């Protein structure tokens, strides 16, 4: 009898630490957030019930609109970019050659360090006298060299491929072994042309001094609804760069799970590389894509760290996101906390996340149905 009681309580005992977390730090907090969103509260005097006033104020708040716009822009653009990039990186890494483990480690590097570290390094790269502007300057002054290199490269590749076609041998436009030859030849030729002074750097071009962070500039200009502010755009690049490698690992696992026979069958049918990828590989990865997009959307909608670290180095309006809006309302630097507004915005953010994930789920699942 005692024993069975011990067994009966065992699951709850084992779960108790987690249940404590789930109840106190999630359930209770979640319900309280709802409650706070209907009150006026400054963390000290007791909350005062105000009904829907906070939500109405949110709708009227210009800054909230900006935060919403920035968050949505950020979520959509970064999720698409990082999904594509992750797949691309995984395809590049899916090779059976020596040292591939080393490259996998190198590619994963951006994902292991903290957002604080990468944001600081990026802020430094995006300074007015930073590396990004320097590389742009270099591209601007050396455009002739770059053009000559690419021109020679294309010519060389075309020459090799046509040569092979004349011999009536099957060859693809991007035959890798030819690509390598073309790169080497055009690189050497360009090098000689530069050394002999036939192709030169452009002169009199002023250095690029774009201000990336501390600016209200938009791209495209004057487009208030769809325009991306420069600082937010920089953060998008940064975030894509740091999160793509995580998702790359998921894709890589997926790619390695695809049975060899599928590739072989495609090859027998004479499918090109691209066709194999589109009709064979991509459908096999649809589960992973769904996961990647869902996780991407959830995390990008909550983007906070980068904005907080850049802080006053960028105008608030051009980088503020929903998560940051919640934070600065709850812990403003000068006025008293507006917990009601913060909670209302947080509730909104929570629902937005759920809604977008649900829509995504529906669209992707239906899309699949059509394909089958």
């Amino acid at each position: 009898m005692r024993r069975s009681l011990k067994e009966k309580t065992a699951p709850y005992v084992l779960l108790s630490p987690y249940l404590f977390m789930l109840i106190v730090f999630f359930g209770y907090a979640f319900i309280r957030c709802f409650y706070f969103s209907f009150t006026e509260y400054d963390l000290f005097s007791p909350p005062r019930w105000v009904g829907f006033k906070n939500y109405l104020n949110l709708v009227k708040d210009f800054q909230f609109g900006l935060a919403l716009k920035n968050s949505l822009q950020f979520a959509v653009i970064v999720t698409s970019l990082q999904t594509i990039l992750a797949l691309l990186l995984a395809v590049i890494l899916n090779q059976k050659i020596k040292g591939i483990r080393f490259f996998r480690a190198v590619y994963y590097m951006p994902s292991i360090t903290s957002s604080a570290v990468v944001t600081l390094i990026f802020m430094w790269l995006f300074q007015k006298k930073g590396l990004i502007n320097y590389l742009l300057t270099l591209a601007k002054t050396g455009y002739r060299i770059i053009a000559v290199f690419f021109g020679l490269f294309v010519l060389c590749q075309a020459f090799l491929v046509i040569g092979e076609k004349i011999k009536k041998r099957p060859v693809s436009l991007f035959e890798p072994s030819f690509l390598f030859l073309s790169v080497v030849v055009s690189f050497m030729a360009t090098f000689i042309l530069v050394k002999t002074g036939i192709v030169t750097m452009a002169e009199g071009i002023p250095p690029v001094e774009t201000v990336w962070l501390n600016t209200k500039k938009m791209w495209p200009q004057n487009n208030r609804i769809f325009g991306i502010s420069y600082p937010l755009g920089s953060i998008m690049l940064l975030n894509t760069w740091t999160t793509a490698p995580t998702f790359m690992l998921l894709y890589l696992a997926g790619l390695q799970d695809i049975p060899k026979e599928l590739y072989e069958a495609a090859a027998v049918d004479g499918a090109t590389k691209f066709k194999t990828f589109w009709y064979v590989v991509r459908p096999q990865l649809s589960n992973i894509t769904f996961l990647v997009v869902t996780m991407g959307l959830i995390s990008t909608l909550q983007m906070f760290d980068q904005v907080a670290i850049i802080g006053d180095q960028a105008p608030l309006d051009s980088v503020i996101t929903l998560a940051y809006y919640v934070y600065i309302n709850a812990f403003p630097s000068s006025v008293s906390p507006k917990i009601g507004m913060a909670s209302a915005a947080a509730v909104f953010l929570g629902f937005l996340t759920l809604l977008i994930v649900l829509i995504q789920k529906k669209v992707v699942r239906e899309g699949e149905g059509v394909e089958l």
Partner: protein
Amino acid sequence: MRKQELSTIKLPSEEEIREFQLKQRRWRKVAMIYLVLLLVSILTIGPFFFGLLSSLKDNPLEWPPKLSVNQLKPANWIAAFRLSKAGCGKGFFGEFAPGAIIPFQVTYQVPAGKEPVTPQVVVPKRVPGTAGAALLIEHYAADYSRVSEVQEVKREILADGSVRVTYAFTIHHTGDVVCDRLPMDITVPLGQQFVSATLDPNRPNERLGRVQSWNNLTAGVIPYIFYNYHRVFSENYSRTTGKNLFSSWIKNSFVLCFARVLTNLLFASMAGFALARLKFRGKNTIFLLMLFSMMIPGQVTFISNYLVLRDGVFGLSKLFGVNTLLNSYSGLIVSGLVSASSVFIMKQFFEGLPESLEEAARIDGASSYQILFRIFFPLAKPALGALTILTFQGVWNEFFWPLVVLTSPQDRFTLTIGLLSFRRMYGVAFDWGPILAGSVISALPLVVLFVVFQRYFVEGISFTGVKG
């Protein structure tokens, strides 16, 4: 003779040529793959590499950005060693001690037709880095040093008529106190160009090239090379306790990670085991709630959690004589005992273990606790390894929650929050050296961990990914 030789050479058959071509093709294809892999690597670790390199530079924002760094030139290492040896008898960590005589040489170039002017050497009373550091300086080398007469030791006339002159002088310590640094400025007229010196100057082009400036001649090799790193540790002291801030942050981060990893390993295995292998009422509800909690942003729950910590978890902490858990590590540990994703990983793992393990033990009369701790726990090494790494990484990099909980004093910060305060302090002055150095230091433990336990990182990601 020659004819005969030619005829004996066997011409390769068509087949052999074809095979050779194919081999070559395969070789070039592999080379192309490596080339692409390498080019993409530049994108992924290029920023880190350049950041690491620039963290050694005097001015990480120099224009144009260069890959060559004065601090990495062996000639400068030797010079720094010798100067420091002259300064205090020690070569690696130096100071400017009584009785020191520092010999120095510097070379300038003057265009044809102009007469070289003897440069003026000054030991300035310069405050290093931020103003806060000034409070720590007891003695300025400027008050205890004398520069000898500057003498011309060599003159060389170049092909175009311009003249290169080398000057030599010594700096003497005249007092009886130890100064921790010996800065120096050399001033020359406009047009007299700096060529070289015993030790490369930290700022060669001050005031249109008229002033060359050194931070510390007797730094010693290590502080010379790792100047910004040295600044990170030497310039940041707590106003209240006088303790070194940056090392406190490192310690805090490690302590927090250690505690959170332990609690997560234990409690996540317990919860994961219960959810995976035991039957009880409310199991599905708990699991669904768990999934739901993983989707809800932290911004929804943080206000209430902040209040819970502020009031000491419903006043429970008062039992231990603690009023509030804000600004404390107990608070961060209590609010992060075990995360939903850790439970999820352990649940996934335990579900994958064979049923027979458990059945056999049950027949032998083992309790659920015994099954978990005697059988399942030892088997869970791979999952626990991955969970350790993931939790460590997550806690080490955590930003939002520590930012809310830890506000003052500064020596309570974790590394990530500390870096934010670095950005605020140094970023205003575009003084990126210490910021980069601090970033590199705080990235280091994870990079080491990653290099050693790469497998676990990868596994951890795929564990979390199974839920799709």
